[in-house]
């Protein structure tokens, strides 16, 4: 599978939706017949996957937030895993 390009604009798949679960105090990713309990990092990444921001912009935003410019590899790995499971679209 091709690498995620800097210009790609990741977005949640149509079937997937983020939800704040007030009963459990957790961020969730919901999809048909399944629930993923998100850790704070995964949630922050997914919140930025709005189909408008490019991958490069997402890295920049997170890098500034954490004062860390070595996060690209980790974010790419998380997004690629979510894309392989069809929760996130990264093409184009």
């Amino acid at each position, binding site marked *: *599978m091709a690498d995620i390009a800097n210009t790609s604009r990741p977005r949640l*798949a*149509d*079937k997937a*939706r983020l*939800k704040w*679960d007030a*009963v*459990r105090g957790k961020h*969730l990713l*919901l*999809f*048909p*017949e399944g*629930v993923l309990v998100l850790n704070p990092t995964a949630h922050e990444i997914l919140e930025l996957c709005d189909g408008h921001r490019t991958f490069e912009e997402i890295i920049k935003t997170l890098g500034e937030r954490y004062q860390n410019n070595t996060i690209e590899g980790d974010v790419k790995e998380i997004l690629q895993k979510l*894309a*392989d*499971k*069809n929760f996130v679209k990264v*093409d184009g």
Partner: protein
Amino acid sequence: MKMEQTRPYSLLCELTYRCPLQCPYCSNPIDFARHNDELGADEWKRVLTEAAALGVVQAHFSGGEPLLRADIPEIIRHARELDLYTNLSTGGTLLTEKLAAELREAELDSLQVSIQDADGTESDRMAGGAPSFEKKLRAARLARAAGFPLTLNVVLHRQNIGRIERIIAMAEELGAERLELANTQFNGWALKNRAALIPTRAQVEQAAAIAHAAQQRLKGRMEILYVRPDYFEQYPKPCLNGWGRMFLTVTADGTALPCQTAREITGLTFENVRQRSLTEIWFVSESFQKFRGTDWLPEPCQSCPRKKMDFGGCRCQAFFLTSDANATDPACSLSPRHDLITQALTEAETGADQTLIYRNAVESARQLLP
């Protein structure tokens, strides 16, 4: 046993047991025809409100055929107002462009259409009743045109598993985002039809290889779920990830169940949402406590290192095959009654044919005769 603090994530709403189809592996209870006192829309809304407060984040609407209910958009809209993820599972024959638009308007999240086969004649024969295959294809296209993420559900058995490649191609052609290939689970109706439906080991292995190759090929485009049949496995499946742990079902007549098949287990009393709140039923009712956790497990499960992985397997299967819902699931190779499974597998290899018993009101009544 200490009070379980676990809360359910998912609620299955079986809105009606009525259905224009008659699939011989239907998951509805054998005696479905006598439970015809359906909950009304206001009652369903109350159930959904209680469910959301209890921790449910996902509502799955099925039946029978849920589109037989004219109030379905209203019920779904209420679930969405509660910020539940909503999923509708239909046989497809009643979906129209207008209804698809109404469901979209109600903000339904995801739509699943069941198709019985990639071969139209065979699909119609398995679904029983009036021809349905063309209507199902049309429903899948209407769902895509309305903008829904589409899941195609196909139950696999010895009569269609050989066409798994065509089934995958059909799902691709229809633009499905997910394809659920679930081997028949032999409880209830399916158990009555087991000789006609159980695949051979060679069929299962070949289908698994094709499904896995397609999963790789379609990665990132279409998700394929291939659920291996537990009869062919060494250990039982972790049914619902544990009894009364993550899922609950409310049936057409308001009975609250840990799983949709559980009402077949005699000797357990299941409570009704008309008499008691969902929260009370979940936390304190006898039926939900009965097989929760692992304290109740018999041997060989109790001393088994896998007990927290599979919870002794499927309670309904244990009941159907051994008449004892407390028993180890016979699908487990360590079960003292695993012979019940190996015997069925032997019969599958020799190919015992059987006429299908269709799931309809007449058969439902007939099967209850002594």
